[in-house]
């Protein structure tokens, strides 16, 4: 299948660029690709910019660590949670990070199976982002426990109490869903990196790095047999990971949907959450790619065409997410259930409570992405970054609004209350961004950010290789 015919699958009515993009790194050969990408790790000096960013993110990470220590000493009461709003920032942060992690699998698995070649330039970054986002996400449910040191009670392990987890609870499903997702994503990321690690091993000049990359490369010798097994395993993993794209966030949405809280108890939640997750995930990939391609001079590989196609996905998922908003509101109005109707109405007009946040959500998630209808704007990196940032903010607020507004005014008016975050709520959230950034900066410094082997496979010379698929 030639790239051109493939791309003609795009809706014909859509205004596209002056040419059909083929996502092939033009003007490059095998060597230049390998050199440019591996040199970032092996040759490029550690710049002041990197050191500055790393110090900054480490400071955030330090704040995060201190907050967690304080949390363990004092208890979850340092946050603003109360009765009735017993879940606040932490669960919001959890869902947000998990959602961000979604783009990784989608790009690695589904787009792989669909032979979307534009994924090749961004899959490594997206997968790394997924791993780090999941690391952040996984911490939040632990921290949010009243007694975090007993987190392992949620795992089914043989014990003298002869107690299993209570499998009817969505929180137990969460444990399985998130841990499976993390493992598969990690495997996928690592497996895909093995040929590149071997390249790094071969190109590094110091003994130490030769050993380190050598160990990580698991003895990759680039033999045809290696390639054969590698390709099969990669494809299989892709198949395995595909259902996870749908399942993880569906399960996360069950944390809300299986409850009887008005505003949570919605059948639309699983698809709505999955769409929202992909939405925010792509926004994050965009936000990471835009500076990286400039700083590391990767504009040949991550082209504006790549950014544009991601913008289109953002636009599409924005519609799916907005459909969720519409569906919730309509069904609550149609269902005529007093408490539920009240919650949704309050979300829209309760300006003494959280309505202004809900309107921020609509602005960020529904209105802002509409600029991507205009080709000029969706190819403008400044606009792309700004909209991505808005989407990330909007998706965080969306989860916050869902959690808070549903809990704060449920069935009995006597128990109505408010949630107001404390400084520790903010510090925990921003601190977790420190963890993410620190991990990502290390990744950028120590591992190949783009898949050299796959990029090489895109070159016209690599037909034989492509035919092997």
């Amino acid at each position, binding site marked *: 299948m030639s790239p051109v015919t493939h791309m003609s699958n795009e809706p014909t009515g859509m205004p596209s660029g002056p040419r059909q993009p083929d996502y092939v790194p033009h003007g490059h050969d095998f060597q230049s690709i390998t050199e440019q990408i591996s040199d970032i790790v092996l040759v490029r000096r550690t710049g002041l910019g990197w050191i500055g960013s790393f110090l900054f993110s480490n400071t955030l990470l330090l704040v995060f660590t201190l907050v967690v220590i304080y949390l363990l000493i004092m208890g979850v009461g340092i946050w603003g949670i*109360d009765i009735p709003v017993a879940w606040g920032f932490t669960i919001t942060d959890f869902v947000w990070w998990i959602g961000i992690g979604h783009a990784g699998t989608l790009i690695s698995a589904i787009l792989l199976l669909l032979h979307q070649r534009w994924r090749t330039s961004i899959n490594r970054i997206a997968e790394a982002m997924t791993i780090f986002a999941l690391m952040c996400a996984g911490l939040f449910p632990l921290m949010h*426990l009243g*007694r975090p040191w007993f987190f392992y009670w949620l795992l089914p392990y043989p014990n003298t109490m002869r107690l299993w987890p209570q499998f009817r609870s969505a929180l137990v499903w969460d444990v399985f869903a998130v841990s499976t997702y993390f493992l598969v994503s990690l495997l996928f990321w690592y497996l895909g990196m093995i040929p590149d690690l071997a390249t790094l091993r071969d190109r590094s000049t110091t003994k130490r790095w030769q050993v380190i990359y050598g160990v990580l490369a698991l003895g990759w010798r680039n033999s045809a047999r290696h390639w054969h097994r590698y390709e099969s395993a990669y494809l299989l993993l892709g198949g395995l990971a595909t259902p996870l794209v749908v399942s993880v966030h569906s399960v996360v949405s069950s944390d809300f949907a299986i409850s*009887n809280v008005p505003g949570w108890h919605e059948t639309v939640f699983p698809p709505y959450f999955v769409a929202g997750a992909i939405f925010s995930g792509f926004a994050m990939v965009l936000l990471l790619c835009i500076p990286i391609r400039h700083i590391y001079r990767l504009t040949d590989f991550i082209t504006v065409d790549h950014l544009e196609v991601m913008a289109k996905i953002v636009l599409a998922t924005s519609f799916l997410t907005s459909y969720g908003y519409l569906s919730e509101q309509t069904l609550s109005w149609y269902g005529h259930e*007093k408490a539920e109707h009240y919650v949704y109405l309050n979300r829209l007009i309760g300006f003494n409570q959280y309505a202004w946040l809900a309107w921020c959500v609509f602005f960020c998630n529904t209105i802002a992405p509409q600029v991507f209808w205009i080709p000029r704007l969706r190819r403008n990196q400044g606009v792309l970054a700004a909209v991505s940032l808005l989407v990330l903010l909007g998706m965080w607020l969306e989860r916050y609004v869902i959690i808070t507004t549903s809990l704060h005014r449920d069935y009995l*008016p*006597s128990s109505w209350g408010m949630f107001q975050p404390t400084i520790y709520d903010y510090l925990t959230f921003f601190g977790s961004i420190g963890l993410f950034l620190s991990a990502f900066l290390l990744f950028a410094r120590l591992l190949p950010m783009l898949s050299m082997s796959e990029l090489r496979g895109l070159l016209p010379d690599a037909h034989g290789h492509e035919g092997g698929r």
Partner: protein
Amino acid sequence: MTCRKDLGSELIALERAAGTVGKRYWRSLEELSETKAFQQLIEREFPSQASVWPDSLSRRKFLTLMGASLALAGVNGCSVRPAPPAEVVPYVRPPEEIVPGKPLFYATAMTLGGSAVGLLVESHMGRPTKVEGNPDHPASLGAAGSFEQASVLTLYDPDRSQAVTHLGQERTWEDAATAISAAMKKQRNAKGAGLRILTESIVSPTLAAQLAELLVQFPEARWHTYEPLHRDEAHRGAEIAFGKTVDTVCDFNKADVVLSIDADFLASGPGHLRYAADFMSRRRVRTAAADADRAEMNRLYVAETAVSCTGAKADHRLALAGRQIEGFLRAVAARLGLPAGGGTAADEGWVAALAGDLQSHRGRCLVLAGDRQPPVVHLLAHALNDRLGNVGQTVIYTEPVDARPENRTRSIRELTDDMERGHVECLLVLDANPVLTAPADLSFTEHLQKVPLRVHLGLYQDETARQCQWHLPEAHYLEAWSDARAYDGTASIVQPLIEPLYQGRSAHELVALLAGSAHVPGREIVRRHWRKQWSERETLQDQDFEERWQTALHDGVVPDTKFAAASISLADGWQRHLDERGGDAAEPESPAVPSAANGAPLELVFLADPTIYDGRFANNGWLQELPKPVTQLTWGNAAIMSPTTAEQLGLKMGSYAHGGEHGGYYMPVVKLQLDGREVKAPAWIMPGHADGTVTVHLGGGREHAGRVGGTAEEKIGFDAYALRTSDRRWFAPGLKVVPTGETELVACTQQHHSMEGRDVVRASTLDRYRQNPHAIADEREQEHREISPRTDEPLTFYESFDYEAPKHKWGMSIDLTACVGCNACIVACQAENNIPVVGKEQVSRGREMHWLRVDRYVEGPAGEPVGFHFQPLPCMHCENAPCEYVCPVAATVHSAEGLNDMIYNRCVGTRFCSNNCPYKVRRFNFLAYADFKTESLRLQYNPDVTVRSRGVMEKCTYCVQRIRHAEIGSQTDGRAIADGEVLTACQAACPTRAIVFGDMNDPQSQVKQCKDSPLDYGLLEDLNTLPRTTYLAALRNPNPRLVTE
């Protein structure tokens, strides 16, 4: 100490003398104790031992000593070295009554505001842990109010004063005794001319007799009484009506129609627990549906200022400014043919309907005037009861329970005058806090400095203690012997449950010291008094006395002490007093309706604080955190006003505190200016409050209450006493309210008034019930058909639980008609279940820990509410519990008896259960709330209930520990658990028996009958939770003439 040494040497001597005992192994303690010498030792021992422990020799101490004696006698081989007396001596042979793990109950009584309530106090291994009402006591009938319930926490309060101090320096009782005796010696020569004693209302016959005796010894001395929440106006009203001071005792059992004039008889004042019980016994509709047309209810009319529990339960309530109420009553009286005259205010139709209703229930109605109202209102109430033929029926008059029913305000003024003139050389303040509570215009504190010797006896180093040279720690009522009379005169012996924790002594012991006698234990003083009383009437043998004494102690009431009805009638010419301007009676020319419009002056009303009373309970965390009925404010008072008045003053609800409506507000602070005095107070808006009036609760803003109740640096609330003068005691015109622009955090557990059109509290009227008893059931049916088809079978995926008898199927029913919203159940629950106090800041974050809350809803628009509802909310123990299926670790599970159990040890704290609980009855330990550190507070904990640490969810358990106790008891006896054998703490405390708990498998059980009532409904039934706690719909009985439907 020396006595202890004597005991030791005596033992050695004894062992030597006995010879056979010392060097030989003995088989049992009994064998040893049988020796004659030992018997003698025991006999001789006690008179001397009594001086080792200078306090009374209680039964418990006796047994401890007995055990100790045996233990010491058995020691040989080593030298006999008795433990220092301060150390606890272990039981060698436990006292026979005490079985570890089994609580004992002792009858006693608590006095507050001039009347006592009989109590049963639960004791675990010698520690009183829980206060219950005494079913045999007329003022309790088994119920106990929040003050009584919470008193056990005051007992263990670590801030209580623990030592005798002189000018702040720690001293001993001996030093104090020397100093006081010296002063008394001097006074004796002067016949006591410089001696003054200040007490609160005394209802202890023994103490009254002791003081009277003291006054005989010191004829020139004076005994003053002052208490801020006094009954001056009621007493004066009786005086002008009958020519002498009498107490009014009501019998609500016989009253069909009740008119309450600013009297909150359901929740405060002498006898309120009994009154509430009697009143509700005439209001409860428990007829079967078939007999619905024979259902009857009494009818209640209330005219009042702030919304009280009584007002909230009224069938017809009129919100009037304090000074308008007199005019209203005059109008009613005029209509009933009394020469009242000058009646104004109020809606004529209302007055006519009310008068007609009273008229048609002659002898079966009751007019009741509140203590705040001026004497003339009381006079009118007496005259109305007389005219309506109620005297002897619903109302009787008795001699006053108060041993000295003098005018408190006059008394404190005389004392202050004497102090000012330097006539007072020695002032003893017994258990009173006049520095805080005396009228502001008397400058009590200033004049107090002129008294050369000032002695204060009290539970705390309070404001008065700090102004006195000597402070003597008082024994708490659970630590000391005394006696007290209830509202109807019935006397009880107050027996201690524990030796004084600190060095406290009772007022009896101090007065005995003043009288010059050597130290006499309190128990002896009380016994002597009753021996004298009983022998006055007949000759009494020692044995008879012991028997009677034991009976009185056991039953908690002294037989035949109830006051007989006095045969009095209105004094001639009582009409002359109708124009008397005593108390806070309205000036004839005073404006009828105060209004904030145009900046006109308002009226200020002083009210007892519903939770900290006059401020004395300020350091009691349970009471500070207890939501004040109706307003639901905690931790401090506020300037309460109606929405209209607030609007006229330009005041609005402030911004949300962290917890929002379930937490509090930053309320605008206003300056309350009255006659040149000024305090700053946060405003609070309460629908139903009379317009043009601002209500403040007394007792806030204390400077020396303790670490909980307020210090000079951190006050709880504001001090309303600063505005209260000797001539404006209850309500004062001319109040100016000046907004300051500042805000202050006001903690409130429920601000939202409206039910938002949801069927939270289902209400109906008697008439509608008679027409169709199934109306409520039909309404539910209708709604459920709309929402989901309802079957008798629970809609669930899972196999339903099996509760076939002989298993139990516990359930609870709460009668919303009967609940008066007094919140006593909340304190009872807190005491029983070791529920922590979290403090104002945490309450404002919506994190209070009460397992049981009483929701308050206002019906109708906020500006003009038409009714109030209270709804106690414990855990519903749902059959399809939403909390159970969302817990990932099975920490909350269904029990075989249908309870929704919480397993604290298993809880990891995900809080999903709380989110998923539509009733929001779950409480989470967000921080480490439980106090594991304070030594004395640990003694209070109920050993049957786990103390929860942080990170753990908790909630109402239906007092599962009590169920287990009953179960074990019934199994031991080989019988079934009887209905009513398991009383949950809330149920036991409830004065109106609104809460019923029992086995729904038993068709005869009370709870089953309630559940079969056509009024029964479950809260949020449409969620298919199948709640096990259900409600009986609230019924009212409005006057058909006033119903505008």
